[in-house]
């Protein structure tokens, strides 16, 4: 037996791989089925959006923000809008803020539905994916009625939103929520609490709270590790203080705190809370204008700011520097997926190759948001 030679195997995964959610590449050093290390290689979707921002004006950049994260574009719209409003000291009309929150929370539902469905598909179950996409399709229809687009919305403007809710939309939205809430229960009994799902996800790649903070994980990934931090609650923006909702936290019910199962369940539980927020928002919505008066030749005073919004992939930071001219001097987006990718190399050590797929899916990494 001593003549048998073993050696480390180098595998390439991606950039076109069904479970990499866009174009991502991993160079995997493996000893059989166990990885020594997976080194992420990103940049395939880099469109230099930050450079484009320096060339188009403040208003003109809004459609580009959709492309930062096209799975939940309302949040990038809102982040950019809020950064410009903070620089120029513009106040958004209350109805405009409500429109923003409603659009954004519907978008969060759509994004989380996709994540939950993809999680199923990545571990080999096709049915949950089809169920989730069926529900997501209706949200796309609703948002299409709101702003004419199904994916890259360009719905918000600096100072508010482009259009008020169309007539009859509110009833449709409420009817949809009535339809969705029991379906979330159905998902749980179909997939989440299914023995196969629990055994596949529990105890896979747990992240401790200290690690999550040190690696700057945000949003559901951070909360799954038990850190109670939600920008909507802790650094309240827009009209979120008006609503009563809970921040679900991971507690390791199925295994270790911060494992893949916790991260998966975070999404399901956040959907329930989003639905709660939406019901309150649709009920309390005040009358009035939706867009503040903003000059077309928008030139904020020299200065800089960072705003943070709670996107579906967590705390998204927009850092904008203005030099007083019509174009921003520098724009930087700190995104949740970029941070989440940074921790994969560390977590991959000693993980099975098949579990890497679970890890990527549970971190909810979206390629355009990493590369921008």
């Amino acid at each position, binding site marked *: 037996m001593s003549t048998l030679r073993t050696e480390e195997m180098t595998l390439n995964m991606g950039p076109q791989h069904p479970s990499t959610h866009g174009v991502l590449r991993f160079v995997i050093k493996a000893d059989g089925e166990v990885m020594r290390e997976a080194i992420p290689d990103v940049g395939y979707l880099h469109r230099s959006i930050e450079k484009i921002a320096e060339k188009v004006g403040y208003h003109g950049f809004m459609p580009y923000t959709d492309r930062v994260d096209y799975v939940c574009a309302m949040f990038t719209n809102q982040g950019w809008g809020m950064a410009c409003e903070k620089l120029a000291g513009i106040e958004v009309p209350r109805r405009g803020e409500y429109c923003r929150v409603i659009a954004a929370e519907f978008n969060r539902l759509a994004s989380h539905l996709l994540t939950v469905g993809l999680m199923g598909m990545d571990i080999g179950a096709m049915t949950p994916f089809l169920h989730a996409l069926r529900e997501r399709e209706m949200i796309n229809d609703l948002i299409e009625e709101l702003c004419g687009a199904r994916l890259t919305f360009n719905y918000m403007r600096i100072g508010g939103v482009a259009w008020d809710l169309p007539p009859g939309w509110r009833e449709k939205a409420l009817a949809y929520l009535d339809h969705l809430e029991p379906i979330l229960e159905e998902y749980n009994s179909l997939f989440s609490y299914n023995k196969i799902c629990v055994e596949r996800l529990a105890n896979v790649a747990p992240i401790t709270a200290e690690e999550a903070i040190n690696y*700057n994980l945000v949003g559901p990934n951070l909360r799954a590790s038990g850190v109670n931090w939600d920008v909507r609650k802790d650094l309240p923006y827009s009209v979120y203080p008006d609503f009563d909702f809970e921040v679900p936290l991971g507690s390791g019910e199925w295994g270790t705190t911060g494992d893949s199962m916790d991260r998966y369940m975070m999404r399901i539980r956040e959907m329930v809370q989003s639905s709660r927020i939406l019901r309150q928002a649709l009920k309390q919505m005040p009358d009035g204008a939706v867009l503040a008066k903003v000059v077309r030749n928008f030139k904020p005073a020299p200065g800089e*700011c960072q705003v943070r919004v709670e996107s579906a992939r967590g705390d998204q930071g927009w850092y904008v520097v203005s030099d007083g001219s019509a174009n921003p001097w520098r724009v930087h987006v*700190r995104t949740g997926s970029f941070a989440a990718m940074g921790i994969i190399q560390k977590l991959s050590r000693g993980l099975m190759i098949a579990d890497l797929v679970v890890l990527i899916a549970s971190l909810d990494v979206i390629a355009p948001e990493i590369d921008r």
Partner: protein
Amino acid sequence: MEALKIYERIKERFADEVLEISDRKPEPFAVVAPRAIVRIGLFLYDDPECAMDCLSNETGVDYKDRIEVVYHVFSYRHRHSCVLKVRLPRDNPSVETVEEIWRSANWMEREIFDLLGVTFEGHTDLRRILMPEDWPGYPLRKDFVEPLEYHGISTVRESPIIRLDQKKK
């Protein structure tokens, strides 16, 4: 703690290394000496009053006469944040890495290196991250000129409509 109070606290400890405290609206910031950034970072991390356990954002800005690296530091324990900056010369900008304090700096510094050409001394894995390995120059610098082609692939595409318009003239 207010951001300005945090800057005062750093100033007490590192008098000469804090070059400027600006209370400019909407967000105040402190400019510190590049040689002290790791010491100040460690102080912010360890000091129980500050407990800045998270580097929430690190990025660079080209101001034509200098390059600034901006650190947005945040504390989950006390829920406060502050903004630190270092000013670097435009030719051959270099500063020590803060990766040892906050791991998230690893990827963010790679991005700054890739797009602005700032070298981070002591960084464990300083490679390009978004652009191809052989890309010429640093795209986010203000004097960057986009090359007309990359490996024989044109980066511009002519428009037949514009060409027609030009013919008419």
